[in-house]
């Protein structure tokens, strides 16, 4: 049934399972080693639940030293390692296989240091995204990238996937908000890259680590940029007859010189699904909806909103709702934030993540609808319009293998379309296994070979998260 292949399992490693487990048991506390089938079951998949593979064992280290010992052991014994944060990856980035162990760093979740004068904070990498902000919000600061899964996902996973969120239009994604990491290399060596200063010495290894999907090392600590919370934040909700009108309005807002903190888009199916679930009071007689959020001093907000509303009126806006209170603002966001959960209530879905130039939004939306319809399936679109990061939710029945295949095929067609119009396969979820075999559509053989040669500098033996990112049939290119 599985359309996505895994590399062949190394039978010699599987045969040595008892010996490997005994070796690991000497390296970590008993609480940090999971080997029973019942407990391993919790680690057999991640957010890409259609794919399940049992790991050989799961190690949950409590310290960088433990991670280092486990990595050195695996390196010496040829055991594959799949790093895992909270396991929320929608791309299958944290799915292991029978000849691999998982190193889960969720037990390493302390705040190490908060440094307000230098606007940075050092944390253990298993801390959740939201817990970082929670640690500094009483003092009026926050950590900017805010992926939808921020309650559960870890900063380690965010670094692996270069996660974004709704507010990156203004504040950037993980790579723009990270100052340093402690990284354990495959042979167990621990390196510090960057720190409290704005840049690190030598080549920009930090930039290379971010988004590398756990293939270059295991991140155990991170130094992140924290930002002062704005005085006030205010969203406005716009309803349009068509997605095209909404798309043109997005382009006009950006061209006008205003940079809102967020521009979120929902199409008609998404509005209906979210409204039925969240009762946010969204208009149901419109074809598309935008949530535009601005921030600053209160007087500043009023001026920005006036300009944005004026632009929306020039683009045939049908409904304008400005929030008059914090409660109304929360309500506007409530529907959007519940989109994935609300969709999950009515159907299984796969969430795509292609990114397109904002000028192509209307066209890609139209084609997305046509593509999914041609497979006899339904789609809801809810995404970050300001940066062109689309999230079509293709709904299907997970128990129907034929529907699953159709949903995956439709998703692949959409991603190919994104690349054709100048975009890319993934904006913030990563490649994982999900989009691995589409990499040829975005990259030439030479591009992939160069990336793999760089990968090999860190992991010559393909031990770290080996089934991910690079098409299996291309791997010989590395040595060409």
């Amino acid at each position, binding site marked *: 049934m599985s359309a996505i292949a895994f590399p062949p399992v190394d039978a010699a490693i599987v045969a040595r399972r008892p010996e490997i487990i005994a070796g690991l048991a000497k390296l970590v506390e008993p609480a940090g080693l999971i080997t029973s089938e019942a407990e391993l079951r919790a680690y057999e998949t991640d957010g890409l639940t259609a794919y399940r593979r049992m790991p050989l064992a799961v190690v949950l280290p409590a310290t960088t030293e433990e991670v280092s010992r486990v990595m050195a052991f695996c390196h010496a014994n040829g055991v594959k390692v799949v790093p895992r944060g909270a396991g929320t990856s929608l791309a299958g980035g944290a799915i292991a296989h029978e000849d691999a162990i998982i190193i889960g760093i969720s037990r390493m979740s302390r705040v190490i240091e908060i440094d307000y004068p230098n606007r940075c904070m050092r944390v253990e990498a298993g801390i959740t995204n939201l817990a970082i902000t929670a640690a500094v919000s009483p003092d009026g600061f926050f950590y900017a990238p805010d992926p939808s899964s921020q309650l559960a996902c870890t900063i380690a996973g965010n670094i692996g996937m270069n996660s974004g969120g709704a507010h990156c239009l203004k504040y950037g994604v993980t790579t723009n908000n990270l100052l340093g990491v402690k990284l354990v290399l495959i042979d167990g060596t621990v390196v510090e890259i960057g720190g409290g200063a704005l840049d690190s*010495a*030598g080549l920009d290894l930090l930039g290379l680590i971010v988004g590398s999907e756990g293939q270059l090392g295991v991140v155990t600590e991170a130094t992140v940029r924290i930002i002062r919370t704005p005085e006030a934040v205010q969203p406005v909700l716009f309803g349009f007859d068509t997605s095209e009108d909404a798309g043109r309005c997005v382009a006009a807002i*950006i061209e006008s010189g205003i940079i809102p903190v967020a521009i979120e888009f929902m199409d008609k199916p998404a509005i209906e699904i979210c409204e039925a679930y969240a009762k946010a009071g969204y208009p149901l007689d419109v074809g598309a909806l935008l949530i535009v959020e601005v921030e600053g001093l209160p007087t500043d907000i009023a001026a920005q909103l006036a300009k944005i509303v004026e632009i929306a009126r020039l683009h045939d806006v049908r409904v304008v709702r400005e929030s008059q209170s914090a409660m109304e603002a929360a309500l506007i966001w409530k529907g959007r934030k519940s989109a994935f959960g609300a969709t999950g209530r009515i159907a299984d879905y796969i969430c795509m993540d292609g990114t397109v*130039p904002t000028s192509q939004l209307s066209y890609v939306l139209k084609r997305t609808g046509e593509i999914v319809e041609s497979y006899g399936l339904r789609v809801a679109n809810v995404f970050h319009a300001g940066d062109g*990061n689309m999230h079509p939710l293709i709904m299907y029945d997970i128990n129907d293998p034929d529907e699953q295949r159709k949903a995956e095929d439709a998703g692949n067609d959409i991603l190919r379309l994104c690349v054709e119009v*100048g975009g890319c396969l993934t904006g913030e979820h990563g490649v994982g296994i999900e989009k691995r075999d589409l990499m040829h559509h975005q990259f030439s053989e030479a591009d992939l070979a160069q990336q793999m040669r760089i990968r090999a500098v*860190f992991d010559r033996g393909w031990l770290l998260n080996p089934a991910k990112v690079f098409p299996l049939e291309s791997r010989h290119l590395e040595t060409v």
Partner: protein
Amino acid sequence: MGHVFTPQSESEAADVIRGLTAPVSIRGSSTRSGFGRHVEADDVLSTRGLDGIVFYEPAEMMMSVHAGTPVSLVEQTLEEKGQMLPFEPGDHRRLYGTNGEPTFGAVAAANISGPRRIQAGAARDSIVGLRFVNGRGEIIKSGGRVMKNVTGLDLVKLYCGSYGSLGILTEITFKVLPRPERVWTLVLDGLGDSEAIKALTAAMGSPFEISGAAHLPAHGGAPSRTLLRLEGMAASVRDRMTALQTFLADPAPSRVVDGEETISLWRDVRDGAFVAMPSGNAVWRVSVKPTDGPTLIAALSNAPPERYLFDWSGGLVWLSMPITGDAGAAAIRAALTGLGGHATLIRAPDDIRRSVDVFQPLPEALMKIAAGLKHSSDPRRLFNPGIMYPGI
């Protein structure tokens, strides 16, 4: 000087590289040719033939240029549409005493980023896509023309700031920003280093969106000046300036400067103008935690800089050092041992750049990775060999 190759297109550049039998020094307009370690190459590969804007989409806030495109053309084209480069790259002609038109390829290759970095990030943060030719003569692309892009390894970041040691950049795609309607600078007079950095870091932790934070210490009888820049819509800048002044609670006599005065002030900070003279001195850039800026200066009391200034709210220290001995290398690096951060020698006579570590020495494990990355991209060591580290 040996032969100068000037390919007129990306594919011609790839042909040239495949045919190389000896290493090359990679040049744009050579306005910063006094930078880096001594490059072990007689021949030159110039990017000047790779000239022009590939596309500019104001509504997407996105531009793409060939590597040899003058920075001035980029800035002028953006200005016509009310936009600008977010990262405010420096023009180092005054610092190096050079002529010619700085090119965009150099800005990307050296990750050249000015005062606005504290708010808008460095060049590497705005650059979203690259095309380059590797040492095998293959044309490689990474990233794209969209802000969010995590498809495969992010080679964009790695190749930005690799000083031409990994490949020849041919095309650079980057995000731009709207030009502010108003730019105002709050100038605080007469603060000492520690008080000044305290004011700057406090302001950076305020919600008033500071886009520049620098301190120019007293020099030659002129009192010190501490600078805080606000940019944006006119009314917003006015309101934030009032709020900022109240927030800082008047640590010193202050005034607001605007117009040409504020623009030239930040241009001087950006370009290292305050440490350009005397031209015979060595110039260092030291990257530290902002609050460590004054600590660094205090630690150099036995080998004090002749002039210095702080940008990035204290996180970037420019030092003008006499060229006696190692031009302060040992003293500066010793001062950094307890602090973290790193020092780069950005201007010095040839003999000093041959004898001291221009870039901060790396721990063994990181040096091994750097050497591996060089080999992975430029196995024949054709590009700027030795510019960052010996053997790389």
